[in-house]
């Protein structure tokens, strides 16, 4: 069963169609990448899932039904526009926001302590939020997102302002949540993080669904016929079935002839007696896919 089912939602603001007939679902135990260029409609979609905005048309089911007060406790949200109360001590701010998620004060205190310790914020607990650095505020906001142990976590650019150590820690936390069977919707422009973390992705542009599926499927569908090879010695001048050999960073990219199969090329190489360290089908990085698709959309969109 899906945690979130989005059916054909649309949302218009004045002249702008922010989201256009969008459908997707998010399952338990996955990290779901919500991708798209700036202004594609990601935040509006997230806000509709959270019931902050109502869709003009379409339907959203969350935990098997409409969004209700009780269900808001099961969701943790890290908005793109970070915001905390600035003029009050960190601990009071986080306690209030956790209480709004339905936690009692006796539940909050020990859990908050754990998180503050984990994020190295214990000493800052009595400082006013505005006195904290950007990175510290970011960590504090992550605590607000996670403290009530939500079933669904929606995070927008979770790694900005974090140093590599904290980035690793947050990644580990997200993976741990996934392994506990929780669902995470992650919106980010850092494609390497998506490649590393996401199980499935949705790419939207101009409010419309452009790509949707598992990361693997999508990358494979964009894979060319090319093969990446790292040999121990030099490659032969010509290989049967290979149209062109390009050397890049000690590796070789073999551009295959139209109907040649990678398996055949591998077989030919072995028959030639070439020792190989590595042989893989060239998978385009997500970054390239993103750029390619969005550029194509723009061309299509503008006629």
């Amino acid at each position, binding site marked *: 069963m899906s945690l979130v089912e989005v059916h054909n939602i649309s949302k218009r*603001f004045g002249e702008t169609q922010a989201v256009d007939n969008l459908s997707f679902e998010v399952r338990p135990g996955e990290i779901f990448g919500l991708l798209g260029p700036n202004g594609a409609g*990601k*935040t509006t979609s997230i806000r509709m899932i959270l019931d*902050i905005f109502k869709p003009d048309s379409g339907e959203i089911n969350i935990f098997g039904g409409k969004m209700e007060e009780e269900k808001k406790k099961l969701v943790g949200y890290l*908005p793109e526009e970070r*915001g905390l109360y600035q*003029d009050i001590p960190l601990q009071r701010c986080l306690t209030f926001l956790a*209480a*709004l998620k339905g936690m009692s004060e006796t539940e909050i205190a020990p859990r908050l302590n754990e998180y503050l310790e984990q994020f190295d914020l214990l000493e800052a607990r009595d400082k006013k939020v505005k006195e904290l650095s950007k990175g510290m505020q970011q960590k504090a906001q992550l605590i607000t997102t996670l403290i009530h142990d939500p079933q669904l976590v929606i995070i927008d650019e979770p790694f900005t302002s974090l140093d590599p150590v904290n980035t690793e820690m947050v990644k580990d936390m997200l993976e741990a949540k996934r392994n506990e069977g929780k669902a995470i919707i992650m919106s980010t422009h850092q494609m390497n993080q998506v490649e590393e973390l996401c199980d499935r992705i949705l790419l939207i542009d101009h409010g419309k669904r452009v790509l949707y599926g598992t990361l693997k499927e999508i990358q494979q569908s964009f894979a060319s016929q090319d093969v990446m090879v790292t040999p121990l010695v030099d490659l032969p001048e010509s290989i049967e079935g290979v149209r062109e050999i390009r050397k890049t960073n000690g590796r070789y990219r073999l551009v295959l002839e139209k109907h040649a199969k990678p398996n055949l090329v591998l077989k030919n190489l072995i028959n030639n007696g070439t020792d190989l360290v590595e042989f893989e089908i060239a998978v385009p990085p997500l970054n390239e896919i993103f750029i390619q698709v969005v550029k194509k959309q723009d061309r299509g969109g503008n006629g």
Partner: protein
Amino acid sequence: MNKIFLVLKYEFINTITRRSFLLTLILVPLIPALILGGISLFGGEESADGESGLFQPSQEQLKEGYVDQAGIITELPEDVEADRLVPYPNLEAARQAVSSGEIDAYYLIQSDYLQSGAVQYVREDFNPLAALEETGLINYVIRFNLLGVDQQRFDAYANPLEVERIDLNPDDVERDQSSPLAFYVPYGVTMLFYVLILTSASLMMNNVAKEKENRVMEILMSSIKPNQLLAGKILGLGLVGLLQMILWVGSAYLMLRLGGSTLNIPPSLQPGPQVIFWGIIFFVLGYLIYATLMAGVGALVPNMKEATQATFYIILPILVPLFMIGIIIDRPNALVPVILSLIPFTAPNTMMTRLAVGPVPLWQLLTAIATMILTVVILIRAVAGMFRAQLLLTGKKFNLRLYFKALFGQEIETLNERID
């Protein structure tokens, strides 16, 4: 319900623990208390006529003389001590008395005084300001003598009307209209009330605008409905306002009671406990009206700066009774004050002014309360309509026309900016 309470509690605790708030809370009653205390310590006991000695300094010690060439002064009034105004037969004698330090100055009433009114004032150290001030005594003495050396006649001349107002309304309390306090007591009550409503309502606007500026709104929206947020804020900050009012009014009341003798406020001019009773009701309703309006402004504007600029328009109605306070105090039951006290936006402080002056017919109090409650219901509904995620997450320069449009329930499409 639970979330409304959480917001209420949070806003209440946050506001009352803020240093600036605590300072205002304590300083506002403390300053007049100190002044009062100062008056009763340093000046109060010296003066027999109840006016503070602080306000009538040094010239009591001044000794003066006069040369009466016109032959007007035959006798000094009984209450003028003989050595404060010494008669001299001629200029020579007076001059000598001044140079020997016997007296500080003398008056020369010239022989053609009855035609010209000419009096010369001669003193050694000429002080133009003091000279203007210090003619009171000779004035009194000349008048007293012109009126035939008759204290009773003089008193009647000085205060020709001892007006006793008899209202057909038997509840009306007699007020000593001649006392300047008849003006200042209601004026004080009105100002206090104005400041109370305005500070609590402004708290509301700052609060909402700040939440938008801090961008904490989106986090809140993911846990709580805008209406719950609005309700919690109205209640929480209302409690803060009530606390402030009880403290301020309580200390003002104490000061009047304890310090009443110092300032010599006759009991008939002191507002009674019923004023406090009605005061609480009118404060709560006035707060609700203005805080709701301010919350609406907060919901529309993007930041604190815009919000502050917009305040002016919102508080205009509550300023009207302040401009007209003279009329209201003078004739509290005339048509204009009565109308102002029935219009919901001007009612809270007009009514308080009138109550501080004297009793107000019960039907007017109840009518005002009814119109205010109705207004509160309409306003809360309208502003709840503005408390929508779309507006709370964006915001534009304040525009009075749009504000009223929104207030009257119109969809404000132009404000629905693209957010993503």
